[in-house]
């Protein structure tokens, strides 16, 4: 049943891709209906009427997203079914080469990621119809957008279903290539084309690493199916090679430092609902690939891998958020914050690997659960924030924080939904982001059980980095909310922004916000559902998680740590309401409206507010070595000998060090190599004849 639902999800996504391509051909559809309904003139008239131009496009758009939403619902149901049943379902599809049919499998792990995919997809399908309307009459083809969105979603679902390396790679490439076209959707800007090319290039390089990783496994196994790969017994060296290749390939897609530089370029330039899917879901598919490869397929786990993942994850987390803090473009900031969150997920996975290699399956499971829960949480709040940014972009055509401000007065409903996302991603209790970080901290604090002193001191250091990361994340998102939604509007079009008109554009983010609150307050049921999954991967489950009841979280044991978010919320709300009642309702003293304090000079303007760049300036200065900051100060002077400064113009740009240190040298190297190879082509016929001659001689020598 679950597997059938999963197929249904894929079919619905593919169908939406097909439906998208018949966009703008209402006459063709009309003709089809005319032929079918020729006998019933009344129905035909009604059909004709409903196919009338503008009506048709609205319906068409709605159908497109309804199919995507259907795919999301089916994926969610399939996922929950697979998680609940706890046993894998396998099937073989008659595609591909005769001796290499596609194997599919739906087990609790892929089921969990089906849920991670389904929830944001439902929200996107609610948000989408309103959002893409503006593309309809522009120079962009909605058909292309719909086609590649459908293929992209289908590709992600197929990756989760794949049970052999071949179909996995085909689905993986489908996902990558379809998303390339989505990144390149608004291709009239050179920057977007460049970002899309970079994305494609990195996707290809990553795919090569993944293929090689599978190749190493297949070399020791008896075939390409995952069952055969699981049976492969590798020496530690070959296993490590396969692991590093997989970490490179999947890490590149997930955006781990230092391979992340494509991510903040590519994610923001896609249409916002696609950015939500890319950041919220696609990165999780990469995490899925990594978990599948290292926890499931590889037959052993070495502690060195755990250390590697832990270090890479911690570096991604802290660098990601430091760079996010310095962005002025809202969507770019969100993309950098995805690097941070993926870093947190990999930190937890690293902890899990270390504990598992140490033979401590319960703690390994705890780390894994923390990582998976953070995946789900990040999928929810990052999609929510991207959709929110999309709504702002749709209403104001603005994504630069420096021009925003005061949107809470213009778009109050969106502001409230966005606030939930902000608090969640800042890892504040009682929301969901806090729960997963709390679990990861709890895992790290159990490091005392490890024998090796080096590891014992490494893990707390990683948790120190994690603590710094979560504090910086709070700073970053307080800045986003404070600069975009609070204060005074910094530009004219923001001052006249209107709340989004389409109900779906609010309903999508609101659904995600409700889930963020729900998981934050009642995390235990979500974690209990993962029991089958962890039994499959690590052979253990968190039996103690609800030792005190279903309202409680007790990851290790009740006396070690316990947290009851629901009770905390009830207590705090009671206190807050009591204060409100006593101080406001009882006194009835209404506040008096007045001007804010302006030091007595009068005339406060929006330009006197702290800007986004100013807000994060202390962090920029304190963490100076992490950034490459370019500052310019232009002065225009007047008067005798230029003594009077009439205007000052300050601008700064924060460049990514990974870009300068890793990408540019590689790029230069490739260009140099190409130039060197290019010397072969002299353009002189005699040289070419010479090449032919020597090749001939060489071949004759080889043959004889």
């Amino acid at each position, binding site marked *: 049943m679950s597997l059938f639902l999963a197929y249904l999800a894929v079919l619905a996504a593919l169908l939406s891709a097909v439906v998208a391509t018949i966009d703008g051909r209402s006459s063709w559809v009309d003709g089809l209906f005319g032929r079918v309904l020729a006998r019933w003139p009344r129905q035909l008239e009604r059909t004709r009427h409903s196919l009338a131009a503008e009506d048709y496009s609205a319906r068409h758009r709605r159908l497109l997203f309804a199919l995507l939403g259907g795919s999301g619902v089916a994926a969610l149901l399939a996922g929950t079914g697979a998680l609940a049943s706890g046993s894998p379902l396998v099937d073989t599809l008659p595609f591909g080469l005769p001796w290499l049919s596609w194997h599919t499998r739906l087990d609790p792990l892929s089921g969990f990621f089906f849920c991670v995919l389904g929830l944001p997809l439902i929200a996107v399908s609610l948000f989408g119809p309103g959002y893409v309307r503006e593309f309809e009459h522009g120079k962009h083809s909605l058909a292309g957008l719909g086609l590649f969105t459908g293929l992209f979603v289908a590709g992600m679902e197929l990756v989760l279903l794949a049970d052999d390396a071949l179909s996995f790679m085909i689905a993986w490439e489908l996902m990558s290539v379809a998303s390339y076209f989505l990144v390149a959707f608004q291709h009239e800007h050179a920057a977007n084309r460049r970002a899309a090319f970079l994305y494609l290039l990195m996707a290809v390089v990553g795919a090569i690493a993944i293929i090689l990783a599978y190749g190493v496994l297949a070399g020791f196994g008896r075939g390409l199916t995952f069952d055969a790969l699981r049976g492969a017994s590798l020496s530690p060296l070959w296993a490590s090679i396969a692991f590093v290749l997989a970490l490179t390939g999947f890490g590149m897609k997930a955006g781990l430092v230092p391979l992340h530089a494509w991510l903040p370029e590519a994610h923001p330039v896609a249409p916002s609902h696609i950015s939500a899917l890319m950041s919220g879901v696609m990165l999780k598919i990469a995490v899925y690939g990594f978990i599948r490869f290292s926890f499931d397929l590889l037959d052993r786990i070495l502690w060195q891998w755990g250390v590697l993942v832990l270090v890479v994850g911690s570096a991604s987390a802290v660098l990601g958020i430091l760079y996010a803090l310095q962005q002025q473009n809202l969507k770019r900031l969100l993309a950098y914050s995805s690097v941070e969150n993926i870093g947190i997920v990999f930190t937890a996975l690293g902890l899990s690997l270390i504990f598992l290699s140490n033979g401590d399956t319960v703690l390994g499971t705890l780390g894994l659960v923390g990582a998976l829960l953070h995946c789900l949480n990040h999928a929810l709040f990052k999609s929510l924030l991207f959709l929110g940014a999309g709504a702002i972009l749709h209403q104001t055509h603005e994504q630069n924080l420096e021009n925003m401000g005061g949107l809470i007065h213009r778009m109050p409903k969106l502001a409230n939904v966005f606030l939930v996302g902000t608090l969640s991603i800042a890892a504040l209790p009682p929301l969901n982001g806090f729960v997963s970080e709390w679990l990861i901290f709890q895992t790290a*604090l159990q490091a*005392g059980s490890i024998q090796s002193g080096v590891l014992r001191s490494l893990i707390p250091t990683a948790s120190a980095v994690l603590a710094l990361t979560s504090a910086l994340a709070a700073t970053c998102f307080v800045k986003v909310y*404070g600069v975009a939604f*609070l204060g005074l509007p910094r530009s004219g079009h923001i001052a006249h922004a209107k709340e989004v008109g389409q109900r779906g554009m609010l309903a999508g983010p609101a659904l995600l916000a409700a889930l963020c609150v729900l998981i934050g307050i009642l995390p235990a049921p979500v974690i209990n559902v993962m029991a089958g999954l962890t039994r499959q991967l690590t052979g253990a489950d968190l039996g103690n998680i609800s030792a005190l009841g279903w309202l409680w979280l007790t990851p290790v044991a009740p006396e070690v740590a316990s*947290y009851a978010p629901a009770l905390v919320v009830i207590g705090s709300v009671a206190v807050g309401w009591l*204060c409100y009642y006593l101080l406001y309702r009882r006194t009835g003293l209404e*506040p*008096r409206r007045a*001007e804010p304090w302006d030091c007595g000079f009068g005339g406060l303007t929006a330009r006197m507010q702290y800007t986004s760049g100013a807000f994060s300036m202390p962090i920029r200065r304190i963490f100076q070595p992490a950034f490459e900051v370019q500052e310019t100060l232009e002065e225009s002077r007047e008067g005798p000998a230029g003594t009077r400064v009439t205007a000052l113009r300050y601008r700064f740009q924060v460049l990514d060090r990974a870009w300068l240190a890793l990408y540019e040298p590689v790029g230069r190297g490739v260009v140099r190599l190409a130039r060197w190879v290019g010397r072969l082509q002299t353009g002189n016929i005699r040289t070419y004849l010479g090449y032919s001659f020597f090749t001939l001689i060489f071949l004759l020598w080889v043959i004889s």
Partner: protein
Amino acid sequence: MDWIMAILEDLLFIAAAPLLAGWIKRVKCRLQNRKPPSLLQPYRDLLKLYRKQPILPHPASWIFRAAPYVVFAATVAAAGFVPLVAVDLPTARIADVIVLVGFFALARTFLVLAGMDIGTAFGGMGSSREMTIASLAEPAMLMAVFTLAMSAHTTNLSQAMNYVLDTGLVLRPSFVFALGGLMLVAIAETGRIPVDNPATHLELTMIHEAMILEYSGRWLALIEWASQIKLMLYGVLIANIFFPWGIARDFSPEALGLGVGMIVLKLGLLAILLVLSEAVFAKMRIFRVQEYLSFAYLLSVLGLLSHIILEAARVHH
């Protein structure tokens, strides 16, 4: 019964916080050869603010009006998690020390958002500085409490205090480092000299005061009260984690009486220590604070490492 005790303890916490603020002011006046106000002066100030009509600046949104309630509720909830006169209360179980840090962050976030809500330069300046300091202080604080958590094998504050009480007075280098780190963080987080000066209203130096510049009336009363509770919270954390002796382990009247007496004594002494340090040190400029806080962070990490290398190793052998 347990829950009633817990609620009573939380109420005692809330009620006593202004008293501690009054005591600090009194000691400070004595030290500066001034005539001190009554110990009850903070209560009078709160009452005066409560009765005044608050002023709402024009650009304010609902965040500005809601923030004081959120800040107060979060701080009161945080106070509930920390054992004051007795351990083993159920409120210490519903949230551990990481949640406590999270609640401080929640309160701070709303205060910062409220500061940015008005759109004046002061609000933004205070908010930016507050978040910068917090993002350095919070990890240092977490590291300090993690040192304790790893020694006691728990993040539950009640259990941690029980552990220290059970093992008795052992001089652990990790605890000394963690205590130093936590004290430095406490000074930064509660906005005392040398990081911030609660008495200043000079534009260039204020941090906390810049954020709440627009608040008046009952809102200001709530925020002031919340920051008094927060100050006391840090005091209780330091006093009860590192020197838990005297805290009640059962609910007999004698034990509770001793618990109240001991915590009053400990807080009184800590307040004197705080005032002495405020008298000795001058306020730092803002870009010195990161050195101060990195020192706190370093102390805490050293504490953690010395626990792992020196103490945990001993357990294993």
